[in-house]
């Protein structure tokens, strides 16, 4: 306890921070994530879909290739000109799939974000306040959880009409039940830890405690749950469209594509297989990534 403290004053804060760097948590997580082969596969699939969706217009023009009918080229098999063949109206299936990816990913991600915002508010309030407030909020959530997701989404779309915005809201609300439970239990498990008590003991104010001590430590399960919810919602988008409750016919939505191809399914199975595979691959990829994140974000697995 008597080491010379003279040289301490000579070094500035910045120099110290440079000399003794933090171990990058992101890098640690990345290392764990990469060790999981399947999660990496999922991430690659998602990246491909995202890139295809981003550059969809560069690869194939929406109006002329994905939407406009071209009766001459009907029902063609896969070829270099049409990678996945064409459908009953002569539209390039590959072009429709990548434009469909735009719709699915956009609705999938945005609806989860909507759900997330509500769930965080609801879950954190219930978890942090506890007591009667918790009881009332969670009973309402229990009731919401009793209605099947897809049924709730259909009800909302049926009531407000089937626009993309309505679908995002419908699917977002449908995710609240499960998501807010995750948030609440995460908050509960952190709320009573001793480091939160320690923050109270030094006189830290409540908003600071909630944000920098509680929510920061809840991020992991929330991210994992969100990733898995994206997978579910991508499928729900297609299910709704398949049922005719979602994106309307000419738009290249995957579920919609399957629905219109049903009549010719026997002769031209590719019309169904291609969008089917797209749905399967994206939702599987998000599930794999979700599992990988669960391992990577779990601090308990660190030694």
């Amino acid at each position, binding site marked *: *306890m008597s*080491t010379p*403290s003279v040289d*301490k*004053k000579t070094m*500035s*804060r910045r120099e*110290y*921070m440079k*000399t*003794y*760097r*933090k*171990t990058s*948590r992101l890098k640690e997580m990345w290392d764990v994530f990469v060790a999981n082969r399947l999660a990496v596969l999922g991430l690659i699939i998602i990246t491909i879909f995202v890139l295809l969706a981003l550059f969809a217009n560069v690869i194939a023009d929406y109006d002329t290739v994905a939407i406009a009918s071209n009766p001459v080229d009907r029902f063609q098999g896969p070829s270099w000109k049409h990678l996945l063949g064409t459908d009953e109206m002569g539209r390039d299936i590959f072009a429709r799939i990548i434009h469909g990816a735009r719709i699915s990913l956009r609705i999938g991600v945005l609806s989860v974000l909507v759900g997330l915002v509500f769930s965080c508010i609801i879950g954190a309030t219930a978890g942090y306040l506890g007591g009667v407030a918790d009881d009332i909020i969670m009973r309402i959530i229990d009731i919401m959880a009793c209605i099947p997701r897809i049924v709730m989404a259909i009800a909302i779309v049926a009531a407000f009409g089937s626009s993309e915005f309505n679908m995002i809201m419908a699917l977002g609300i449908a995710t609240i039940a499960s998501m807010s439970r995750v948030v609440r239990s995460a908050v509960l498990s952190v709320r009573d*830890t*001793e*480091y939160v*008590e*320690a*923050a*109270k*003991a*030094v*006189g*830290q*104010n409540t908003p600071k405690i909630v944000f*920098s*001590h509680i929510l*920061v*430590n809840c991020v992991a399960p929330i991210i994992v749950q969100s990733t898995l919810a994206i997978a579910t919602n991508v499928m729900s988008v297609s299910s709704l469209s398949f049922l005719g409750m979602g994106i309307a016919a000419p738009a290249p939505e995957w579920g919609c594509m399957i629905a219109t191809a049903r009549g010719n399914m026997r002769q031209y199975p590719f019309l169904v297989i291609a969008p089917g595979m797209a749905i399967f691959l994206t939702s599987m990829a998000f599930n794999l990534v979700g599992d990988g994140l669960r391992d990577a974000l779990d*601090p308990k697995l*660190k*030694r």
Partner: protein
Amino acid sequence: MSDNVILEVNNLKKYFKTRSGMLHAVDDVSFTIERGKTLGIVGESGCGKTTTGRSILRLVEPTSGTVIFDGTDITKLSKRELRKKRQEMQLIFQDPFSSLNPKRTVCQTIEEVLKLTGEYKNSDERFHRVLEIMEMVGLDERLINAYPHEMDGGRRQRLGIGRALAMKPKFIVCDEPVSALDVSIQAQILNMLRSLQNELGLTYIFITHDLSVVNYISDDIAVMYLGRLIEKASTEELFRNPLHPYTKALLSALPVPSLHNRQKRILIKGEISSPIDPKPVCRFAARCDHCTEACLKGEPPLVEVSPNHFVSCFMVQPEQG
């Protein structure tokens, strides 16, 4: 005398409502601590020692009673006043794993507290204070950016102590600060707590179940059983002349790491009874070999049998004169 008393606890009670009734965690506990001294609170799990410590800091709201710290009644303070007062009273936790925010580095943990004191406006000054505190608790400066999971239990506990000291408190409640640590590390931390007390003039409440530790660090010892304070005396007195049958049994149950001067064990039968709605009789009566009718009729009061030696037992009479 009263000028020297830093903390005075009077009739402190904390009851918890449970489904099966009222749980008397702390039941009518009173004691005082002098400035710069250490009061050890010992007892077995469920005796209310932790709740006592938390109630004094109002981390749990006491059901009734007063806690007078440095002339102010803590129990009457508003939330804002309490927040200020808490800067002078700190807490060190048992588990160095769960008491640190896993997402914060050593520097961030200590600096958060320093920011709250508002004493250091300049970021570089504040930073050098962080370094000073780290040196005080024996943390190497290369750990400045380490996360809790990158340190072992002993270092984590040093950080926990550093966080408490950053407030420049006068009084610290140490809740089993060494029981999660290995003996060699435990000794390091105990020595450090002792020398910090001398350097900074701190007052401790030291909560533990380990009698050899409490013997080493405390000036006075209070023994608790089922929410009640049953004996309190100076450490020498308590170890030399324990009067309450439970204290006697507790002392004799302590495994001594020596082959010589061994004493005969007093084994007490049975286990601690339920703290839920206890009957108004001596709480130790069911396990006591000396139990009489009087013990089953009422609760024995805490009496000063000799100067600074308090016992709550019908079998022990105050010295005459």
